[in-house]
């Protein structure tokens, strides 16, 4: 068996590969569901029903989509530069922290200023958190993958410390939680969904425009392609890296703001709930195209929401629902391999097939 580089994959082949991947995902999952003793078709039906079946469920799916979209946009900017930011979790947490600091710890902010201020604070704090690895990358060439990953844990432990320590709400009757946001710091709702939805769609438009039509967006794309080309064209590579990561982390920070102010109404250590990692998948599947982020995030949200619905509807254990999600993702992400390589099988040849000397 041999793995061979595909030198040219036509669009038709790519579509076929993706289609087979989805088919494989359904088949493999069906077998798994069958083993658990359920009818796979009932399960799939329930997943769709649970994510799209009613207005409330549809809203719940959109609520899952919003943080995915915003975080993916942040990750997208970094990935476009081939800066592997896997620190979305930490940046979300730190953005949420800054928003909470403004909402809970600063007195005398007029109501109309509250929301703009918490967004600004969340953006800056998320950005600053991403600037740390960006600085070390630009200055010393440090590995950003390791650094962004490790900063996640620092952020997580920091928020945990706040929740169980200095920021613990004395009025919560011994329960380790941080006080709720004042009403002025809560996102208003429109059609039953907080305006994070509108913000996320606006951000898709802005990021699309930014990457396509601004000098900075152009510079980020060039730096991602080659440092040497960027330097040759007169760009200040370090400055571009720092700027891009401020935006990338900042957008993740905004996710933190939306989740605290729109969903949880307070800061908790679970605020990021894995969006920083899931967004890596959605960003990658979007092909680093901002408009596609919206579609991919929506489909991913169906998977998340449908997965949690079948838990309650069919009493499928949560771990089984997670395995299901994992298998679907495995097939789809795994198909990317076949877009780039093909596997060649060959019969074992007899050792005496072909002489050594005449």
């Amino acid at each position, binding site marked *: 068996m041999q793995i061979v580089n595909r*030198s040219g994959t036509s669009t038709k082949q790519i579509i076929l590969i993706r289609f087979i991947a989805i088919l494989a995902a359904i088949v493999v999952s069906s077998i798994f569901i069958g083993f658990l003793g359920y009818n796979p078709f009932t399960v799939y039906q329930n997943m769709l029903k649970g994510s799209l079946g009613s207005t409330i469920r549809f809203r719940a799916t959109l609520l899952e989509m919003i943080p995915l979209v915003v975080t993916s946009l942040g990750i997208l900017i970094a990935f476009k530069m081939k800066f592997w930011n896997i620190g979305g979790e930490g940046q979300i947490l730190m953005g949420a922290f800054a928003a909470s600091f403004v909402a809970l710890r600063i007195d005398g902010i007029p109501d109309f200023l509250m929301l703009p201020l918490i967004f600004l604070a969340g953006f800056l704090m998320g950005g600053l958190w991403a600037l740390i690895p960006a600085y070390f990358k630009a200055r010393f060439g440090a590995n950003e993958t390791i650094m962004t990953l490790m900063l996640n844990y620092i952020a997580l432990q920091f928020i945990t410390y706040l929740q169980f320590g200095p920021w613990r709400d004395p009025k919560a009757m011994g329960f380790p939680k941080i006080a709720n946001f004042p009403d002025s710091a809560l996102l208003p709702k429109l059609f039953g969904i907080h305006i994070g939805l509108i913000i996320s769609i606006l951000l898709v438009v802005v990021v699309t425009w930014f990457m396509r039509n*601004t000098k900075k967006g152009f510079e980020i794309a*060039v730096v991602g*392609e080659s440092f040497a*080309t960027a330097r*040759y*064209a*007169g760009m*200040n590579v370090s400055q571009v890296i720092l700027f891009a990561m401020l935006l990338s982390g900042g957008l993740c920070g905004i996710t933190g703001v939306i989740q605290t102010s729109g969903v949880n109404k307070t800061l908790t250590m679970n605020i990021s709930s894995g969006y920083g990692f899931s967004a890596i998948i959605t960003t990658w599947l979007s092909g680093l195209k901002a408009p596609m982020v919206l579609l991919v995030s929506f489909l991913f949200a169906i998977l998340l929401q449908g997965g949690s619905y079948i838990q309650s509807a069919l009493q499928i254990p949560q771990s089984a629902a997670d395995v299901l999600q994992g298998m679907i993702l495995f097939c789809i992400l795994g198909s990317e391999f076949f877009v780039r390589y093909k596997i060649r099988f060959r019969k074992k040849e007899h050792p005496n097939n072909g002489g*050594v000397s005449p």
Partner: protein
Amino acid sequence: MNRPVYVEMKNICKTFGVIRANRNINLSVTEGEIHALLGENGAGKSTLVNMISGIYTPDSGSIAIHGKPVRIHSPRHAIELGIGMIHQHFKLVDVLSAAENILLAEEGPPLLFRKKATEKIRKVMEKYEMEMDLSKKIEEMAVSEKQNVEILKVLYRGAKILILDEPTAVLTPQETDKLFGILRNLVKKGCAVIIITHKLNEVMAISDRVTVLRQGESVCTLETKNTNIRQLTELMVGKPVDLSIVRCPAEKGKLLLSVHHLSALGEHGVRVLDDISFDLYEGEILGVAGVAGSGQKEICETISGLYPVEKGEILFQGENIVGLTPREIIKRGISMSFIPEDRLGMGLVASMDMIDNMLLKEYVNQPGVSVDRRFAREKAVRVRDRLDIQTPGIGTPIRKLSGGNIQKVLLGREIDAKPSLLITAYPVRGLDIGASYNIYDLLQEQKQKGVGVLYIGEDLDVLLELCDRIMVLCNGKVTGITDSRCITKEGLGLLMAGESITALTEEVTPCKL
């Protein structure tokens, strides 16, 4: 000629995606012959030999080695069949000695029976009359010595069929002669050698037979002694080509660039540029010759502000530009264009289209935060039409273009900026003959407009014909600067090997200046 046939390839086809790299290729190599594979870039030479050496397998067609039909499924299998490939980029471990490198590939317990094995290497060396210091470390070796280690390595493994991929690209003319001597010895002792090249005079000098490939097909196989350079070129290109470069006269203008005692450090503090001084005038082409890696890249990059200068000055129209960043150089209105060696890694962005690649150099001069692609689009159209660039459209990512067209995009963009200094590093590398002569014409056109051109080249014949003056580098030092009419190719070779110009005899420098 009734010598046994070592390699027989019949109707070989190989397709990559939609590209048909090889179509019905026939090749037969016999014992005791040096067989040249000649063809332009993309003609399918590498694909073909990669199928002999087990890297690819053909889609259809048959290969017979020593008369037996085989399916070569891996490089290891190829070695077992007595096929040895010597790649352009050597695969040697720097910190080990020659003997250790040769024994590394040995199966079984490594390096255990070194004495016995070394004895075996010596026997091989004796047989093929090769000379080498087996205990010398690779890192202390010159390029040609490393190449010999590679050759010895495959011979030691029992190779009877040797394939060399563009072996002379990294050698001086003198080293090339030595290599050819070794190859002749090999075939005398019963080996067969396949040599890939696109240098016609080398084909004439070394090969017994030559197979010409064009666009993935084998055009014909000729006895070298029955052909000539003109015929080979026509077969290779598919139409008659005028191979002479007529140096156009141009008024040598004012002093444009003056480099004084320039030094620069490379990795590990090695001096890659050592006290370089030269002048470049308007309306002249100054050629730079030297073995690859003699400091050519660093000269270009220090002048363009991309490589740190240790000491010395670079005066552009009298102004010292040492220490300025590329952007500062642009901002000062210094009109300098640099065509780097690494086109897709430095000069252009491979995944972007022509429009965005035009934008690369001019976006910074646009007002506001957004980029305006209108001018870039116009420029892309202009460059495409002027240089006759073959592309599906200006919106196609340039990595999908052929090498020659990619180079034209880069050159076209830089020329369109109307520079007064044009620095070109290996501008025809990887280009076919037609495209190369196109580029030479473009450079001469620039020269006639009064542009000063610094031309880093590798083909000495071209350097002699195209350039007004030639500067020769060896190990980061200038070994000579001379009028190109006043030196022969051999003279350049001696300078490239480190001889000083004052030590050259009159035979190689017809008119000393």
